């Protein structure tokens, strides 16, 4: 909520001319989200400090039908966020744009400057340093909490010798980057403006990808908001859409390849993809002419929409489109639409079920849908010690309810096969560690007739 800029340039009060703000007065500016106050805590020839204080209206922050409860109790009024950037552009617009009628010569001159940002929300001190230090700042970070690891807000001091417009531009772009939360942009074009502000330095920044990526995040749509509303108080932090995040992308590819091989070996023509997610398997199967029909099933409507976009269902020729069906369905409900297929693939879906619900899943698939071939993949927990992030025994995704060791998976596979008249074989997927097995384990069930 507070940004101060200090200079020791002589005369320091030239800062007032650069900012077009008189050091002798306190001023108020109306902004769409509240007010901005500008005043000078210090103004001498040796040292001059300007303060930009945001007075954000907490009530008008939340608008529209999609709001969830936590939107109302909000840290936005108190911290440095995208609002600060908007205020800089509105209140210090000329300085940011490098215009000064009184001191045009100072605009491009490197000045001794210190910026203090109050309550910047950021993951760690390192993240602040990694963004500002490459740009030539001396960075000082004070966490809000004595325990550095649990602090969420930090007061940041940036010391540099730079033209003022550069400092303002960097703050303008990097504060929302660090904040990494929903941006309260006033209009859609703010994103474009932000990118435009990066001209001349962003392309050289070693962390430019990180910076740009964060701008493209946090565009919630209505479906996700409805789900956020339903998600219970307990798991506010969990992602909605689960895909294994650990490991290299190629493990995902290897998995798809292994499943496709198992499916083609089975001679299946009509295939079910249960828990199809964004449709990677569907995409792979569409390339195989022998597959006449693929039904992708997922419980998340949002995932199905993404799958539809990914495989380009809209633009497909009729003949091609008729091969694909996307259905909302759940692994724990019996579903007549899923009967009569040759094969079903259940890729990395099992571990998203509560163990107590596995029985329902087995009934649904092995007893009622009962395709001839069923291919199941799931993480191999034994392998997790190979991932640094999981050293403390964590699971690969926050939504995983369990991950099975090779022994547990083998025993589940055997009992399900026996109970429902299937024969099962197990296969590793991915690099096999001689002691721990492969990262992914796969079972291929064949119905015995």
């Amino acid at each position, binding site marked *: 909520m*507070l940004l101060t800029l200090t200079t020791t340039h002589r005369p320091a009060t030239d800062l007032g001319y650069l900012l077009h703000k008189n050091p002798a007065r306190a001023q108020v500016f109306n902004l769409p989200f509240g007010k901005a106050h500008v005043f*000078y805590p210090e103004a001498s020839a040796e040292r001059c400090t300007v303060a930009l204080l945001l007075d954000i209206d*907490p009530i008008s922050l939340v608008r529209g*039908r999609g709001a969830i409860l936590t939107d109302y109790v909000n840290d936005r009024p*108190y911290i440095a966020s995208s609002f600060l950037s908007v205020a800089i552009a509105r209140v210090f617009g000329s300085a940011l744009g490098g215009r000064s009628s009184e001191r045009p010569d100072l605009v491009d001159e490197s000045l001794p400057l210190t910026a203090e940002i109050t309550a910047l929300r950021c993951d760690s001190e390192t993240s602040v340093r990694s963004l500002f230090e490459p740009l030539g700042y001396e960075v000082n970070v004070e966490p809000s909490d004595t325990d550095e690891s649990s602090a969420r807000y930090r007061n940041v001091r940036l010391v540099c010798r730079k033209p003022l417009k550069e400092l303002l531009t960097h703050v303008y772009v990097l504060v929302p980057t660090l904040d990494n939360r929903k941006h309260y942009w006033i209009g859609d074009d703010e994103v474009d403006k932000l990118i435009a502000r990066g001209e001349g330095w962003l392309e050289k920044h070693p962390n430019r990808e990180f910076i740009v990526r964060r701008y493209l995040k946090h565009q919630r749509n209505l479906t996700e908001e409805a*789900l956020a*509303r*339903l998600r219970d*108080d307990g798991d506010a932090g969990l992602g909605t859409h689960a895909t294994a995040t650990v490991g290299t992308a190629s493990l995902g590819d290897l998995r798809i390849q292994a499943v496709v091989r198992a499916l083609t070996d089975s001679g299946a023509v009509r295939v079910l993809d249960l828990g199809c997610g964004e449709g990677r398997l569907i995409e792979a199967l569409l390339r195989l002419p022998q597959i006449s029909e693929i039904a992708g099933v997922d419980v998340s409507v949002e995932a199905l929409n993404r799958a539809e976009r990914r495989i380009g269902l809209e633009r497909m020729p009729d003949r091609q489109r008729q091969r694909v069906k996307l259905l909302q369905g759940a692994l724990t409900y019996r579903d007549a639409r899923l009967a009569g297929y040759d094969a079903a693939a259940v890729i990395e879906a099992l571990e998203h079920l*509560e163990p107590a619900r596995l029985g329902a899943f087995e009934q649904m698939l092995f007893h009622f849908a009962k395709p001839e071939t069923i291919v199941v993949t799931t993480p191999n927990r034994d392998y997790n010690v190979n991932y640094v992030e999981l050293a403390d025994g964590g699971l690969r995704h926050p939504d995983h309810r369990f991950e099975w060791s090779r022994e547990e998976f083998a025993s589940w596979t055997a009992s399900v096969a026996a109970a429902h008249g299937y024969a099962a074989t197990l296969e590793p997927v991915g690099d096999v560690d001689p002691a721990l097995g492969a990262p992914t384990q796969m079972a291929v069930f064949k119905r015995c007739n």
Partner: protein
Amino acid sequence: MQLEIPDFCLVLLVGASGSGKSTFAQRHFADTEVISSDACRGMVSDDPTSQAATNDAFDLVRYIASKRLAARRLTVIDATNARSEDRRDFTRLAREYHALVVAIVLDLPERVCRDRNATRADRNFGQHVVRNQVRSLRRSSKSLRREGIRYRFRFQSEEEIDAVEVKRRPLWTDRRDDAGPFDIVGDLHGCFDELLVLLERLGYQVQHQNGQFKIAHPENRRLIFLGDLIDRGPRIVDCLRLVMDAVENGSALCVPGNHEVKLLRKLRGRNVRMSHGLDATVAELEREPADFRECTAKFIDGLVSHFVFDEGRLAVAHAGMKADLLNRSSGAVRDFALFGETTGETDEFGLPIRYDWASEYRGDAAVVYGHTPVIDAHWVNGTICIDTGCVFGGSLTALRYPERELVSVPAVETYYEPVGSPRTTFNQTTDPHLLDIEDVHGKRVVNTGLLPNITVRAENAAAALEVMSRYAIDPRWLIYLPPTMSPCETSAIDGLLEHPAEAFDYYRVSGIERVICEEKHMGSRAVAVVCRDEEVARKRFGIERQGAGAIYTRTGRAFFATGANADYEKALIDRLRNAADDCGMWDAFETGWFCLDAELMPWSMKADDLLNEFYRPVAEAARLGLDQAKAALEQAATRGIDCSLLLDEMQDRSTMVAEYAAALQRYEWPVESVNDLRLAPFHLLATEGAVHAEQDHGWHMERLAELGASDDVLAPTAHRIVDLADRESSDQAIAWWESITDAGGEGMVVKPWAFVAKKGRTLVQPAVKCRGREYLRIIYGPEYTVEENLRRLRQRELRSKRSLAQREFALGLEALSRFVKQEPLRRVHECVFAVLAMESEPVDPRL
């Protein structure tokens, strides 16, 4: 002449053009029952006489007929139907929907038809047309019986036709106006000794005089026998005599079993294999006089395949009945009633593999059947097999209706060794609790006892499906989800958004005289389903190895989901079971389980993530930001800059933020064992056989005080009773609310004294909350008490919240009531699923 036809059938009017079919139809049937081929010609071509439209018109006739027959509606086809190929389509359609076919032939002289046509402008076709029609009619009318048309009537003069009176009678299966009470008895197979014990247990007086059985029940109950009285067992003729006598004197009904049907063929001299115990029956019958054998044959021949009772709520058949065959008539219906459905395959013992029709049953009637021995009888989708294999050494079971209680008598001995393994003798029914996506998917309309036709929109159902399948616990535990609750109307009092006066006003205006104010606990909503032991969980909920109960949140997820916390659930359930032992609740309510609506504290137990992610950071950020702002302003003030207003504002904001942090702190305390938890139940929702919605809240408070008496973990709910007509009474309650909220309490919930309250025919809000000023900082933000903020926040819209609260209340009680009535899981699930779907509606979450 009186023409008697079944009240559900397909009537074919047969007659040449001009024979008066339409006039006949008009006189004897309702307009909507008659499908006229000419009208359909008109509909598809704008010309009711167009011959070119014949094919399309008959497509339409058949289509309408199929919809009507599927809905079990009597249907009349008004077309010439002169040739047997014309009729074949319709007899086939009737067979598909198991409807009897009636042909009414208007066989008037050709001259009469011709003269009539001559008077009508639209019938100017050649004379040969009518001549051909009359000819083919006469030629083919002999084949009506062969075509499978059961009822045939023929009239040959205008006088005859004018004298006709059509009388409809119900199908033999149709006893919907008979509601019992009944005791339905499973397969006897000659187990007469066990039958006598069972009848005694059921309260029947059995007398045997002059070779005649006389059966009577003091409460006029009647018996229903599900067939397979004979074969295999030791006293077959006694069973036969008892049942035949009881049916004869009206104290019993009986449907045939496959064994009786086979015996009938034997008695009629057919060549039948003497397998599956038929030899025992034949041997016993041979010792009987010939006229008894004749009586037996007559008795069997007269048995009706199945019955439907009690407005369609109960059906009985030997081997079961599918919904689309129920109360219909065809060979297929009879076969299904006798044999059930088989897949056409046989198992390793050569026995037919049975198709598990019950797992797909979706009908409204409870179907009670036998035929396939099971180890114990349990409800599967509203069907129950009560053949518990007495003759194989199991037991003889009866189901009391409408009580739905099971009464069993164990077999004295194993009279007959089963073929094959026990697995093939005693059938395993597939998991009866697997829900079908069709039961929840898409737009749905749910009828509840309190509110009819609650619509669930497809988008909301889609969102609920995701939540239900990804987060909710086993649906068999989910017999209830609590409704959302609306706040009182907004208060205009300075510094407040909510105040009890508004809640009292609301109920006063709604015609409520007395309310109860219950302290609003500072925790999270929790529903507890508690069983006396795991055996009850298995028998009543069908849940094994998941403990003796469950505690779940308002969205149906496990309250204690993860790791170490999971043990709290078991510990808390154990505490509740002990508390119920201590206060004698199981016996007092004759129940093995109960369901509580409660609040579980501390809030931080469930909401720790939320506290860490959102609520605590706000306090942290605010302190940091406001401190720095104040420091900068103070420094500017020393320079003589006038910023005192702003400085005061920052100071006020600091105070509010500190109050917010203090409010938060009341919601967290460390939990190291179950002793640190508090469960405050406020509704004893249901026990076996009863949803306690008829009991007032005073009753609930008393029962729950008894339950909590012996255990500190069960927290009481402080409450006050308010007589709304008495100012003093409501003022006292207001003072009480002030004392609670001044101390930082969450506030109170005001409820009508009656659990379900109505004003006229409209449902009154079951509860309205009045939250305290400090608690609301957590909801509306730390600085909501600034007058400028309050002014805007007072513009809140309660209508949609209130409508939701009513619908969810009705759905929650409906779910319980269906569970208590032992309705199939899908029917219970439909209601809780709808509550969850409602909750995805976007309403202001701060309300």
